[in-house]
Every structure is written in C-alpha cells, then in structure tokens.
C-alpha cells in the first residue's frame, strides 16, 4: 500500500510487505538520524489524547520533533471544549484545520473510524477503547524482528487480558502475516476476542488457547505480557483466583528458554516482578525505543510522498 496521506485505523489493513517496508524505513531513519532531522520541517502533528498515555503520546511527539516537525495537542480531554460538551466530530473538524496529521487516543471503540470520517488530514489510531492499538502492534513486530532477527518460525505467547487488551488484538492481526505459532494464555474470562480469532483462522494462522501459563512458557520464543485489570471482573473472587496465575517471577523465569525475549506494552503493575528487569531476556524497556523508531517511520511515510 502507498502510505502517503493514508490513515491508520486497524492493524488489519497491513500486509506483510507493508510491515516489512515500515521496518526498513524505521531502520533507515535510525541509521542516519542527522540526515533526517529536518525531514518534516513545516509540518504539524496534532496529538489528541482523550485518555491517559505516557509512551504512546511522548514517543509520537518525540518522533515528530526528531524529524524537525512541530507538535500541538492535549493530553487530557478535561482541558478542552470536550468538557463543555463538544463532540468528537466537531473537535476533529477543527483540529484538521490546524495540522497535517492527527493522532487520536479515545476511550470509545470506533472513535478513530469516526475521526477518519470527519478529517481532511490523515488519522492515526493511538488506541480506541479495548478495540485496537495498531502502532503499538507495529512497534512490537519491529522489536521482535530486531531482537530475534526473524519473525517467521517463532512461538509467540500473548499473555494476560486478551479480551479487553487492545495491544494484543493489533499484534495478533499483524503477526498473522508471518509464519508464526501463537499461544493465547489467559484466564477463561479474558480469552481472545472471537472476531480476532476469526480473522486469524481466515488467514490460516496457527493459534492455541490455554489457561496454563507455566506449562506453555517453556515453548515460547517471545513472551508478550499484559496487565490483568481488576475492574474487568464483575466477581472479585474470580479476580483473586487468577490475579497471581499470570505473573513472571524470578522462579518462573527458570521455565523460560535462554534465548526467549520478554515484552510488555507497559505500564505494568505486578505481572512482571521488577527483579526480572536485570534479566537479559527482559526487553520491555528496549521495546519502548522501538516505539520511537517505528513512529518516526509511520509519520514520515504518511506525510511525505515517495519517502
């Protein structure tokens, strides 16, 4: 696909060729940062974060700044006219007049699609409810590809809240373009959404669902942890039963392959013990740097023709 002036709404829009092209662009910029430091001079990116964010917002802003562009936006809906009752559609129509590109994070599912309808400039979905987070998925594939030197042939485990976790939805869609074996490890209440599994089946991607964390861990080359949120459980007794079943501790790390990598979209709460941070397999902080690299590639490829 031609990225110029395109929107990013869902990870489903990407083919393997697209993903590889973005990875190449990310590496190209990374290998010659000085050369590209004025690439987007005169361009303005609007970052509209209706929901809290640390890494996504700051890495998008940082990426734009490193490429010589400018950033406007907000990091809380509370400081905007949304508080006065302005609709998302009206906010988007206004901001589209002030910028060349809009990044949007919103708590409602379908928000990015609505924004796309009302915007004259490209829209990038930076997370919408529990639906998707496609640029996180793209940076995750970049991290896997760089850290493991391949994506094909890997056993990749997505662990935790697979029902409401938007990052795992996007990542699963993107990985379905590669020859991988996916393991969905979660409590029964938080199993991977049917629509995602349906899409994987259509693409003939191999996946296994299990609740057995310890038994599956030794098989995995990539361990992608996510947070199990207490508020997702109607019955707190159910939460208490599973809250400690999907935690990486130093002891459990003994089950993990020596050359496996541990990733996490962050923020983490208690699912990865801080004691593991020094383990060479823990790559979640390096992963945040791949976020910056991938977002530079994404922004540049959308704002510049033939980049």
């Amino acid at each position, binding site marked *: 696909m031609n990225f110029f002036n395109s929107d990013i709404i869902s990870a489903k829009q990407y083919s393997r060729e697209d993903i590889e092209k973005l990875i190449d662009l990310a590496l190209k910029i990374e290998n010659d940062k000085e050369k590209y430091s004025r690439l987007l001079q005169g361009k303005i990116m609007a970052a509209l974060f209706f929901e809290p964010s640390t890494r996504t917002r700051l890495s998008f802003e940082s990426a734009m700044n490193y490429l010589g562009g400018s950033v406007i936006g907000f990091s809380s809906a509370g400081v905007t006219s949304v508080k006065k009752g302005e609709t998302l559609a009206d906010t988007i129509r206004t901001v589209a007049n002030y910028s060349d590109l809009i990044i949007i994070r919103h708590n409602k599912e379908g928000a990015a699609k609505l924004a796309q309808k009302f915007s004259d400039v490209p829209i990038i979905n930076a997370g919408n409810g529990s639906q998707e987070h496609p640029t996180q998925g793209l940076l995750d594939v970049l991290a896997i590809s760089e850290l493991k030197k391949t994506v094909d042939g890997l056993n990749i485990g997505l662990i935790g809240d697979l029902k409401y976790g938007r990052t795992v939805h996007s990542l699963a869609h993107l990985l379905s373009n590669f020859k991988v074996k996916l393991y969905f490890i979660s409590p029964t209440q938080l199993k991977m959404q049917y*629509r995602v599994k349906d899409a994987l089946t259509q693409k003939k991607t191999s996946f296994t669902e299990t609740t057995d964390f310890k038994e599956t861990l030794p098989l995995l080359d990539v361990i992608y942890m996510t947070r199990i949120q207490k508020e997702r459980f109607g019955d707190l007794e159910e939460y208490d039963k599973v809250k400690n079943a999907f935690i990486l501790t130093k002891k459990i790390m003994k089950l993990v392959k020596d050359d496996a990598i541990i990733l996490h979209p962050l923020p983490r709460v208690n699912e990865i013990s801080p004691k593991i941070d020094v383990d060479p397999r823990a790559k979640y902080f390096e992963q945040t740097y791949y976020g910056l690299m991938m977002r530079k590639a994404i922004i540049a490829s959308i704002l510049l023709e033939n980049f």
Partner: protein
Amino acid sequence: MASKSDSKRLYVEKIKKGTVIDHIKEGFAISVLKILGLEGRNGTLITIGINVKSNVSSSGHKDILKVENIYLDEKQIHQIALISPGSKVSFIEDFKIKDKFVVKIPSLIKGIIDCPNENCITNVDREPVLTEFKVLSEKPLKIACNYCERILYKEEILHMAEKN
C-alpha cells in the same frame, strides 16, 4: 357454505388503504409490530395472522399483518428484512395493490439499528453519525458494526431491532 378459496382468505380482512406484510416468518408478527411501533391504541385497524397455513413456507406456516392507513418507510422495511427476510410487502390503495416487493437484507445496514456495545462511539450522544453494520453472513444472519467491530447474531439483532 364458504368456498374453498374463501376458507383460505377468511383469516385476515381486506384493507382499503395501507400496508400488507405477508410471508413473515412464523411467530415474528408481534416483533414486526414492535419495530413499526404499532400498538393499535390510536384506532388504527391492524389485523394479525399468526401461524397461518402457507404452501410456500418450508415450515408450512407464516405470519401476516395488515395495517390500515400506514405506509412503511425505507428504514422500517430494512428493519423487517433483518428479522424476517423474504417477507412480502404490498402497499394498498382503494383495495388494490399499488406496489409489491420482497424485503431483502441490505448489504450495508445504515441507521437501522443501534449498536449494542455501550462503549461504541455511535452510542455517544450528539455524535453526528448513523450506525453502520456490514453483513458477514445472511444464513445464519451475522453482522458486524463498522465502527467498533462488535459482531451481532440473530437474537441480538432482533433485540436491537425491537428496541429501535
């Protein structure tokens, strides 16, 4: 003594002007009335036949509705299509059929039912968008919200259609 053809027609009285919905899936006439928002309290003549014998239906039965002085709009026709595709709608004037057609599920269901996902952007007050669902399968009926991607099956579609 009533003739054979009379005995077939006795169930439902002819109307002078209005809409006849025939070949409704058996047991769904009440749902159709709910969709149309008709309760009969304003004096409108509504005749209902439920589980009427049918030579066409595979089950051998059908429902039929005749509503005087009311013509269905496009949205209502599409709503009926969602719960009973294949129903036949006739618009009547002076006891004669003015227009007649079979209702079909549209490929894009736009603004006909709400999305059941409370967290879908289409359920936010005053956002200027109509709901949109694409049909994933007609038999069994399976549709998906174009915004939040929630998948709806027959029972939920019926529930949402009645709610509108």
